[in-house]
């Protein structure tokens, strides 16, 4: 990128014209006042001059607008900040290929909601083939073998299942946070795994739930914490980044 492009504006059909299109609905009946309201909103968004190119009533109480106009904000490219994840996000195909080349056997994942928690929404969204947010769950990955123990699994049962399945990773979901039960449960789990497995064969311990602080990994003794909005691909990509010895992915 050249120095002169460090500040940019949206591009319609000429450099620097700043043209954008937006569409939105206002809870107003369609009349002149509603169109004026749409223009006012556009101006407050920095679109000036703004042109209402389409307004359509949707029932008696709502109006839909499409607005075009030049936005007066500037983008300072140098100041754009991006939080990089510390592993590459891969497609299911790439994940499967990596496991095949690197492990030469399926990657075994054991999942559960531990303690009294019966909310399997999270673990199911990650594991079930149905998945979450348009992404298939880990069951969909041909090179992953998924054992989903479901809800209200005791820690000893989880350890036993992980031993039996020779788990590479254990995924635990906790939604209920009453009296910090999610933290107690996880500590109980990590203690049990430390006892049952020598460090070099201990499965990767991954926990998830909407109320965990993602920075608490050391404190809880787990390998990774995933928060709200995590998708199956996030988890799958993380697992292979930690479990599959690096192979040259550039090789074609």
């Amino acid at each position, binding site marked *: 990128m050249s120095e002169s492009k460090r500040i940019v504006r949206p591009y319609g059909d000429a450099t620097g014209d700043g043209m954008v299109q937006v569409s939105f609905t206002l809870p107003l009946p369609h009349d002149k006042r509603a169109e004026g309201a749409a223009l006012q909103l556009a101006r407050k968004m920095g679109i000036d001059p703004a042109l209402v190119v389409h307004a359509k009533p949707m*029932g008696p109480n709502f109006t*839909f607008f499409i607005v075009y106009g030049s936005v007066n904000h500037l983008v300072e490219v140098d100041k754009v900040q991006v939080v990089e994840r510390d592993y590459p996000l891969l497609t299911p195909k790439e994940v499967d290929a990596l496991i095949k080349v690197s492990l030469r056997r399926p990657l075994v994942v054991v999942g559960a909601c531990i303690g009294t928690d019966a909310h399997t929404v999270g673990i199911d969204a990650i594991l079930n083939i149905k998945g979450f947010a348009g992404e298939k769950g880990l*069951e969909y990955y041909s090179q992953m073998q998924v054992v989903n123990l479901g809800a209200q699994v005791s820690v000893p049962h989880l350890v036993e299942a992980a031993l039996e399945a020779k788990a590479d990773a254990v995924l635990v979901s906790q939604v209920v946070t009453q009296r910090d039960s999610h933290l107690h449960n996880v500590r109980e789990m990590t203690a049990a795994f430390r006892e049952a497995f020598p460090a070099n064969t201990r499965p990767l311990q991954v926990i998830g739930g909407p109320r965990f602080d993602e920075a608490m990994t050391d404190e809880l003794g787990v390998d990774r914490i995933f928060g709200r909005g995590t998708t199956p691909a996030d988890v799958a990509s993380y697992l292979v980044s930690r479990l599959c010895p690096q192979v040259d992915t550039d090789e074609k």
Partner: protein
Amino acid sequence: MSGLLNLDRRTVARARSLAKKAGAPVVKLAKAHSTVSVERSVLRLAGLTGADIEGTPWVNHLVDQVRADVGLELGVALPVWHTMRREGITDLQLLAQKAVAGSVSFALPEGKDVDRAANAARKAVGRGMARIDRNRIQRDKLITKYPNPSTPWIYLIVATGDIDEDVPQAIAAAREGADVIAVIRSTGQSLLDFVPEGATHEGFAGTYATQENFRIMRAALDEVSIELGRYVRLTNYASGLCMPEIATLAGLERLDMMLNDSMYGILFRDINPIRTFVDQRFSRQIHARAGIIINTGEDNYLTTADAVEAAHTVTVSQLLNEYFAKEAGLENWQLGLGHAFEITPELPDSFRLELAHALLARELFPDAPLKWMPPTKHMTGDIFRGYLLDGFFNLVGAMTGQGILLVGMMTEAVVTPWISDRDLALQNVRYVMNAAGGLREDFRPAPDGLIVTRAHTVLDEAIDLLERIVDDTLLDAIGDGTFGLMKRPADKGRGLDGVVVKADGYVNPASELLEGQPA
């Protein structure tokens, strides 16, 4: 049969007879078993409602207690009504409460008491069945007064999680043109082994299916049907571990359509295959009796497998769903067999292939309404391209006479539909139907063209697969990952512990009524 594809009648008959061969052993298996949810349905038909303060329904308590005391091999009816008579209790809820408190234990009747208990149970269950029958008559009356819309029926989804929010949204959707309102269930309800009670306000990405929620929504839609002068149908989901009970509640509250696939729970929810087939059969018998149209879930296969490679698995599943439905007493007009527009738009001729698949379904099942599902897998977030895809989806729907059209949203996979998304989506449907609704009359695919050839290929592949399933047995085919690429062995999966083998002398008054007098 319109015969645009020139399908060979013997080939079609062969496909059907293979589906029957594949399905018959499963029906036999289903007849030999019962499940906790089937038994709970018996109690629901007998009028038992409500839950304890922790939300566990009384039907669950009662069935669990009976199972602990005497087992369920003879069904729940005999021990329950025998114990009621012995204890002088006339109210099922009181019995359940006492059973939980430990002040009543169940015993099986002997001698003349067997008939006494069975007859008392039949009388009680008969009242629930009569209510289902009255609802069916009431629906028929309403349809006479406020006629059916023309096809395809416009199917819109409501999903707020709160029944009080769902109602105004559903009313708005009906006013905007929806002929069918589907209330999506809360994520995870399919894995609950109980049906929640009462009006609910806290679902995840959907609203819990409960009897009270059903009643509230049906009442709201009855009002709007009068206002609009057309009968607005209500849809919910008879799937998951409580499929038979939810079907029963749908019959009791006059729902009109139910999602009810023979294999969805097995494949996509990892529910035990035997549990599913037993629950399936009972729920379909209820739907048959209640005059409910079922919607099957073949579209889901195409969200996991490739829509071209796996096209024949859709056909196979439709044929199996048809067989299981007919066996359970459903009629052609009640079979909303599913299929979907999921071929990657990058593929050359994708539209022609979609037409071929949709026409094949239409001609294989000429008297079934068919449920046509919009693209989801290739909706990328590019809403503009998505809007075009939805237009082509609607066009296939128009050209192949689909009965139920689920309206595609350009914001699929982006947000839950906004009011404007729905409005734009309905404009898309209206434009296509208005511009090309009559195209079916002019449309004659060339006899040796891609569409006809493709349809024949898919049917042939379907027959090959059915032959393999017959050799292998359906349960093993499901175990091997034949459908949607998922392997589900018969001895695994959720809900297996809720399956019981029926013993000689098993009594189920609901099944007697459902099988004795077909609707």
